[in-house]
């Protein structure tokens, strides 16, 4: 059951992978598997260190990546153009191919979901009014009601409760999640304000949510990778110091 909770910032392993590929600015059709696998595993490790339960899907993907990585290390057979039909060997196929196909398909739906989001936002900007009661327009002598079933009654109830649940749009909207990119900028500002140094614990507010923690962590990893910051820990269990990396001063925030 513990495995059913997923990493907060990502919709799943494919989402995380797409993020890593995007950040690494590599070709999705030619993924540097060793590099991406390393980053993927590192992210999962950090999550576990933060005691976030890592969903089984993330673990399965880690295994898949490792298996692709090992296959890539094997010497590739020479291409045999005229292989017998039944003998279409697996080795001939790029071990990454299936993963790439899955990533591409998932990405496609992610883009479509984005378009749906835009349409939803547009539709949320217009209001209608409830349909008017037509009963008064039915002639008085006719007391019967037509086309109303028990199902309609239950359905009405469901709609009603749904409306009550949706009545809190402001709470939802205000819970704006911060992007990794914004968090990166914030951290660099904090470091700068702190005279080139900030304690790790200072990066988190008291009531920091899991997604804030995860976002902050990913932002730190990104900054380290980009060599904007370095992390120093003098002694075990001591607070980690986030320091501005040499030469990072002149970079644009």
């Amino acid at each position: 059951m513990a495995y059913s909770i997923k990493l907060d910032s990502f919709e799943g392993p494919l989402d995380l992978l797409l993020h890593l590929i995007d950040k690494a600015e590599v070709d999705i059709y030619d993924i540097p598997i060793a590099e991406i696998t390393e980053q993927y595993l590192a992210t999962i490790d950090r999550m576990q260190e933060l005691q976030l339960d890592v969903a089984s899907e993330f673990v399965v993907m880690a295994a898949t990546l490792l298996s692709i990585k090992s296959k890539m290390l094997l010497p590739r057979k020479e291409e045999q153009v005229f292989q017998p039909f039944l003998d279409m060997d697996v080795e001939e196929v790029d071990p990454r191919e299936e993963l790439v196909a899955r990533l591409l398909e998932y990405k496609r739906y992610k883009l479509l979901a984005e378009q749906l989001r835009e349409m939803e936002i547009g539709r949320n900007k217009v209001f209608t009014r409830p349909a008017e009661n037509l009963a008064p327009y039915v002639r008085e002598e006719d007391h019967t009601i037509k086309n109303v079933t028990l199902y309609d009654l239950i359905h009405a109830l469901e709609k009603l409760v749904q409306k009550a649940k949706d009545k809190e749009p402001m709470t939802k909207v205000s819970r704006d999640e911060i992007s990794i990119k914004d968090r990166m900028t914030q951290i660099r500002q904090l470091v700068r304000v702190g005279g080139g140094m900030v304690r790790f614990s200072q990066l988190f507010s008291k009531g920091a949510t899991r997604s804030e923690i995860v976002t902050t962590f990913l932002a730190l990893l990104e900054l380290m990778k980009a060599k904007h910051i370095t992390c120093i820990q003098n002694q075990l269990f001591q607070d980690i110091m986030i320091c501005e990396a040499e030469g990072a001063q002149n970079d644009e925030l």
Partner: protein
Amino acid sequence: MNYDKLKGVIEGLLFISGDEGIDARQISEIVEVPEEEVVDLIEDMKADFRRAGRGVQIVEVAKAYQLTTLPEHVPYFERLATSPGQSTLSQAALETLAIIAYKQPLTRSEIEEIRGVKCEKALNTLLSKQLIREAGRAEGIGRPILYATTKEFLEHFGLREISDLPEPPVNLDIEEVRMEATALFGKQEEKTND
């Protein structure tokens, strides 16, 4: 803002205010224009609507402005009401009936608290269709009327008795639902994934 744009905004406000209507003071606060000017503008709009042969009109009920249909269009609405496939109970009436069915007997203000809107019109419809009846009066201030379903209600929905109603698909205690929703938003942070 020019007057034409202002009139458009006021029409939109009237449109979404529905049966509850909206008064000049509220409009004035929203559009940030003095109340007297709002009143003048609405008088203007009434004339505009008539002149343009519009299908709706602005009426003043209990100091609130409302958009309503035109009395001369009633024959068309009658045709709509009796056209095939047309449900003769509105969503409002259905919701009200569902609440009464599951929580009877209860008062109008209790229903309104659950629905969050007035339901006088819906109650009248349901009474005239004999789907609900007055079932005595509640204790307390004003001794308000209690509503309950009727024999005709059971007949229409093919129920032997009221206890034959299916389990409510949802929690009908709106306060609890709201709390649930709030709790869910909290939980959402832990489980954004599904």
